[in-house]
């Protein structure tokens, strides 16, 4: 009852919906960067939404199956193949014992989620199988998967029809330029009015440093700070604060030059000021942005953030209904 890793793809990790509850100790919630994609892939193969699957970035793994299984791939447009035969994304398909699942080249997005009927059943750490490589926690021995790994699978509890598919209208991908909605706050007042305006006017680009910990952005004007005497213990640079907690999605800007949006494997705190936070509804989307993608940050208020959250929950409800 295993799936064998022939090649690992890029940054392929075991992820479920993460381990909330330990952020105060520096252990982030982790879990799929694009939670909607993982949940949907699980539903397609008859798993619980929170079952563990694989997350890969840009390049998928090659996996050999030792038993028949139902598989679904959601998220980025990275077409799956079974023994070289193309299969559709966002659609359940069958893989027979001895067959090999591989992937074609990336067409859009950045991260795929591979769900396998029964789910991956590596050991739980603090209530989750998610890989947190920096803390050597979860996954396979606390690390991403590598060739030669045998991933254990659970028993499939529910038979599903092959060919079950998510309608196109319910699949999401980033627009171009992508828009990330931001609620200003935290240390927003530390920026000059001009800098506050510039941040939302400029078009930024996703930098190469974009991973589970955070996404860095480049190309906008350098942010200027309101002059002040730095408080004791904060450090001399105006972008420094007395080390504090970082919200998920918060945007820190070391020395005012390159904003970094913290993601699922966020560092829990540190000494950089933050200008605000990407709203919860847009966090999944960040994980699908490729380097160099142009991005506009869009200023919203709390009412808009909550409306967007509700809208996203409705999409998930519709997916559940279609796949039930």
């Amino acid at each position, binding site marked *: 009852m295993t799936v064998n890793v022939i090649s690992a793809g890029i940054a392929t990790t075991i992820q479920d919906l993460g381990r*909330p*509850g330990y*952020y*105060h*100790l*520096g*252990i982030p919630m982790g879990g799929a960067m694009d939670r909607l994609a993982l949940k949907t892939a699980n539903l397609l193969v008859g798993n619980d939404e929170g079952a563990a699957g694989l997350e890969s970035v840009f390049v998928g793994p090659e996996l050999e199956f030792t038993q028949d299984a139902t598989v679904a791939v959601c998220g980025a447009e990275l077409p799956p193949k079974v023994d070289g035969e193309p299969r559709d994304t966002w659609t359940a398909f069958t893989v027979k014992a001895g067959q090999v699942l591989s992937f074609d080249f990336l067409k859009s997005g950045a991260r795929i989620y591979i769900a396998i009927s029964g789910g991956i059943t590596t050991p739980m*750490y603090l209530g989750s199988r998610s890989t*947190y490589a*920096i*803390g*050597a*926690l979860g996954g396979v021995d*606390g690390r991403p998967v590598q060739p030669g790994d045998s991933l254990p699978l659970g028993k499939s509890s529910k038979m599903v029809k092959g060919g079950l598919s998510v309608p196109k209208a319910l699949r999401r991908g980033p627009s171009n330029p992508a828009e990330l909605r931001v*609620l200003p*706050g*935290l240390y*927003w007042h530390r920026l000059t009015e001009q800098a506050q305006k510039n941040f939302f006017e400029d078009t930024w680009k996703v930098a190469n440093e974009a991973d589970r910990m955070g996404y860095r952005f480049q190309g906008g004007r350098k942010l200027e700070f309101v002059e002040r005497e730095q*408080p*004791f*213990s*904060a*450090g*001399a640079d105006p972008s*420094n*604060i*007395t*080390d*504090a*907690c970082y*919200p*998920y*999605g*918060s945007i820190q800007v070391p020395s005012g030059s390159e904003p970094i949006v913290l993601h699922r494997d966020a*560092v*829990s*705190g*540190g*000494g950089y000021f*933050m200008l*605000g*936070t*990407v*709203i*919860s509804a847009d966090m999944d989307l960040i994980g699908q942005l490729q380097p160099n993608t142009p991005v506009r940050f869009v200023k919203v208020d*709390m009412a808009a*953030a*909550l409306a967007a*959250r509700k809208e996203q*929950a409705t999409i998930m409800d519709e997916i559940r209904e279609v796949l039930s």
Partner: protein
Amino acid sequence: MSSRYTFGGDEHIFVEVDEEMSLEAFFVSLSMTNAVRKANIKGVTEICPANASFQIKFDPDVIHPDDMMKELKRLEAEAEQGDNVLETRIIEVPVYYQDPWTHDTLMRFRERHQDPSATDIEYAASINGYDSVEKFIEAHSGAPWFVSMVGFVSGLPFLYQMVDRSRQIQVPKYLSPRTDTPRQTVGYGGSFSCIYSVRGAGGYQMFGITPMPIYDPEQRVPYLKDFMVFFKPGDIVRFKPINREEYDAVIAQVQAGEYMPRIRNVRFSLSEFNADMDGTNAKLMEALYDR
């Protein structure tokens, strides 16, 4: 002290107790987070105390952010009446200052440093007015430290020294962060010491290394059997300088699964400390060693 409340998106409230660090600000943050925990507010998912601030994560589907904000502000009055007394523990942490491993690492990153011709500890000693590294180590290890925050990465403690401000060591962080730091490095940035719990990136100046593991996801270390993270906010730490032989001896004990750090339970009162810092610290040392 008047706290500043702000939203971190639709899922967090961030409360800055004070812009600058002090034990007073830390105690307000700690008693506020204790009050939030006790209040058992529906929808709260994470409670994170920090040095002079704290953060609450909540589920906006369960409680409206404005209502959560009201709840927190209501608790502030209650928390401010706390008597700032802590039943906590004091722990001796052995430190091999100027060890070969952090030395190798700091030499690899000299181009990111304020003073490429000096080591991190030489630089820190000189800008803080110490005429020798030995005197600086005496100051760093001479008075105990408060764990004022746990975080950044798994189980990393930030420590704040229990001396008056005139004796506080202040050191800037690296000009740009290193991509590598040995596990269990004792670092310094701003007015905080830290112990790097895992190997990885870091921006604090490196002074030495401790042989004592403080994070163990495998939970093989005997004192981490109950939980994989050793430190919690409010712990008091005494750094004990050790040499290479002592370092190797502790490492051997750790590997044999026999190492236990020296730990004693103590009661700490902030007002007693403020009235007589050196006297309070001397009593803490007595508690650590005279039993």
